[in-house]
C-alpha cells in the first residue's frame, strides 16, 4: 500500500523527538489480534458445530432444567433443559450467516449502483440517488417487521431483506469514492489510451474503490448481527426451536431475576463478537485511510 510508505515518511518528519508514534501506527497490536482470535474461534465453532461432540441444541432434557453452568453443561441449561453452550454455537451460525451474506448482497448491488452514479453522473446519478434516498426514508425495522409478518421468516428472506436495507449505505460510499477517483488523471489517461467505460470502471476505478468498500462492509457485518439479534428477539427471525442469540435472550427474559445467566450468555457472546468485528474494521480503516497520504 502506498499509504504505508507515504504515511511513514510524513509521520517521521514532524515526530523527530518521539520515535514511538510511527512504529505504533504500523504494528497492529493486541487490540487487533485479540479480536481476530475471538472472531476466528466463533467462526470455527459455528462452522464445525455439526462435527463437535455437543449436546443437541433442540432436544429437551427434563432432568436438568435450569441448571447453572457446571462441568457437563458449560453454560448451563435453559428452562426446557436444553444445553446453552450448544445453543450458543448453533445460534452463532445464524448470526454469522446473516451477518456475512446480507452485507455481501448489499455490497454487490451498492458498489454497482454507486460506481455507475459516481462515474456517469448526470441523469443516471439523479435516478440512483433518488431511489436510495427513498429506501433510506423508510424505517428499516418497520420494513423488516412488515415483510417477516406477511411472508414469514426464513434465512434467505432475512438475508435478502437485511441486505436490501444496506444497499443505500454501500451505494453512498461507492459513489463518494468513485467521485474522487473518477477525477484522477489516470481515468482520463486510460480513456485516452482507448479504454471503454466498462474497462475503466472495472480495471481503474474498482480496485481503488474496493479497499474502502470492503472495510465498510466489515463494519456493516457487526451492525447486521445486532439487527438480526433484534429481529430474533422480537420473534421475527428464524422460527424456534432453531436457536439464535436473539431468541435465546428473549427466552431468558422471563426469569431474568432468578436465572440471569440464560439471557446473559448470548448477550455477552453477541457483545464480544460485535465489538471484535468493530475493532478489526476500525483498525483496518485507520491503516488504509487514504486521506492522510498524498497519493
Amino acid at each position, binding site marked *: 500500500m502506498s499509504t504505508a510508505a507515504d504515511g511513514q515518511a510524513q509521520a517521521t518528519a514532524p515526530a523527530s523527538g518521539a520515535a514511538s508514534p510511527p512504529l505504533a501506527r504500523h504494528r497492529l497490536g493486541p487490540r487487533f489480534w485479540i479480536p481476530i482470535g475471538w472472531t476466528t474461534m466463533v467462526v470455527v465453532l459455528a462452522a464445525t458445530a455439526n462435527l463437535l461432540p455437543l449436546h443437541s441444541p433442540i432436544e429437551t432434557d427434563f432432568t436438568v432444567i435450569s441448571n447453572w453452568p457446571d462441568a457437563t453443561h458449560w453454560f448451563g441449561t435453559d428452562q426446557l433443559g436444553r444445553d446453552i453452550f450448544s445453543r450458543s454455537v448453533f445460534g452463532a451460525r445464524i448470526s454469522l450467516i446473516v451477518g456475512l451474506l446480507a452485507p455481501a448482497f448489499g455490497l454487490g448491488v451498492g458498489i454497482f449502483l454507486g460506481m455507475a452514479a459516481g462515474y456517469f453522473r448526470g441523469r443516471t446519478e439523479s435516478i440512483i440517488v433518488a431511489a436510495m434516498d427513498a429506501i433510506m426514508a423508510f424505517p428499516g425495522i418497520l420494513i423488516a417487521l412488515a415483510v417477516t409478518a406477511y411472508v414469514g421468516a426464513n434465512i434467505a428472506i432475512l438475508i435478502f431483506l437485511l441486505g436490501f436495507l444496506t444497499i443505500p449505505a454501500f451505494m453512498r460510499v461507492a459513489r463518494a469514492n468513485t467521485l474522487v477517483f473518477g477525477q484522477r488523471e489516470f481515468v482520463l489517461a486510460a480513456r485516452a489510451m482507448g479504454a471503454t467505460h466498462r474497462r475503466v470502471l472495472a*480495471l481503474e476505478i474498482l480496485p481503488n474503490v474496493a479497499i474502502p468498500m470492503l472495510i465498510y462492509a466489515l463494519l456493516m457485518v457487526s451492525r447486521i448481527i445486532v439487527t438480526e439479534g433484534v429481529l430474533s428477539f422480537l420473534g421475527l427471525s428464524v422460527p424456534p426451536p432453531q436457536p439464535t442469540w436473539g431468541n435465546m435472550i428473549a427466552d431468558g427474559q422471563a426469569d431474568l431475576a432468578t436465572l440471569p445467566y440464560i439471557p446473559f450468555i448470548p448477550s455477552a457472546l453477541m457483545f464480544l463478537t460485535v465489538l471484535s468485528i468493530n475493532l478489526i474494521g476500525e483498525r483496518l480503516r485507520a491503516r488504509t485511510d487514504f486521506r492522510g497520504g498524498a*497519493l
Partner: protein
Amino acid sequence: MTKASTALLEVTHLVTQFHTPHGMVRAVDGVSFSVQRGQTLGIVGESGSGKSVLARTIIGILANDGSPTTTGGIAFEGRDLLKLSEPEMRDVRGKDIAMVFQDPTSSLNPVKRIGAQIGEVLTRHLGLRCRAAEARSVELLASVGIPLPAERLHQYPHQLSGGMRQRVAIAIAIACEPKLLIADEPTTALDVTIQAQILDLLRRLQRAHNMAMILISHDLGVVAEHTDVVAVMYGGQMVERASTRSLFHSCRMPYTQALIRSAPSLPDPPHTRLRAISGRPPDMLHPPIGCRFNPRCDRATDVCRADQPALSPSDADGAHLYACWHPVGAGEVLP
C-alpha cells in the same frame, strides 16, 4: 479519404460548448490549425483559456455526462474524428493519438503495478500477450531512460519519483508509436531540472519516431525552445499563430506581447517587479463583446469593444496570423 493530404491533423472551426446550470460556456470557440507530420505545435495561454479542453476535444475524452457538445472538424489523416463512432474512436486513441497528462502523481493508477499499466495498452492495441508484452514494456521503459526497467515493472507508482512517473506515463503514451502525441503541460508538476530532461526525452522520441506533437504549456520558455509553431489562446479563441521564431521575434497581438513581457528574465536585477497583465481572464459565461482581450488591453478603442477581429495574415506568405484591430508594429515589439 485523402490520405495524401499534407497535414496530419487539420482542425477547422472547432467549437466545444459546455451546458452548465448557469448557461452555455464556449470553452473552445472557433479554433482552426493544422499540424504536420513530425512537427511540434505549442499552445500557450493562461489558465482557463481552453488549452486543455481543446486537447481533450481532439482525442475525444471530454466529460461523460453528456454536457459538452462539439462542432467543427478534426481531420486526422483525412478522417474526421468527430464523425467516428465511439468504438472506432477508441481504436484511434492510444494507437494513433496518445496523450501525456500534467500530474504524474495522479495519471498512474496507485493500486496497479507499472508493468500492468503499460501491458494493458500493448494488449489492447497491438494484441501482445504476456511474454511479448513484458519484453516490450522493458524496452519501452529503457527507451524513456528508466534504470533497471525489468525491476520497475513489478513496482507501484508510489515507489517512483515524480520525474520517473512522468517517464512511465510517456512510455505508456508512446507504446503504440502514435503519430500524434498531445502533451498537456507535461512538465508543470516537475521541478526545473527534471523538466528539461523530460522535454529532451520528448524531443528525442519525437525525432526517432517522426511523431507530431502538440505541446500545451503556460511556460513560454518551454514553448520557445521546443516547438516549431506556436498558437496563442485567449478566452477559448486562437488569437495569434506563427512559427516560433516569428512569434517571439515579432508578435502582433498585444496579448502575446503582454504574455512575453510578463515572463521573468534572468538578466533583470533582483526584486524587479514582474509585469503582470492587469485584470482577470474573461468570464466565459459572459465573454466581453468585441475582442475578448479588450478590457485588459491598453490599445483598446471603440472598434475593439464592438467587433471581433478575425485572424488575418501578417506577412505575405500567410504563416503568421493574428487577430487584432491595433496590432503591435513590427518595430516596437520587445521592450
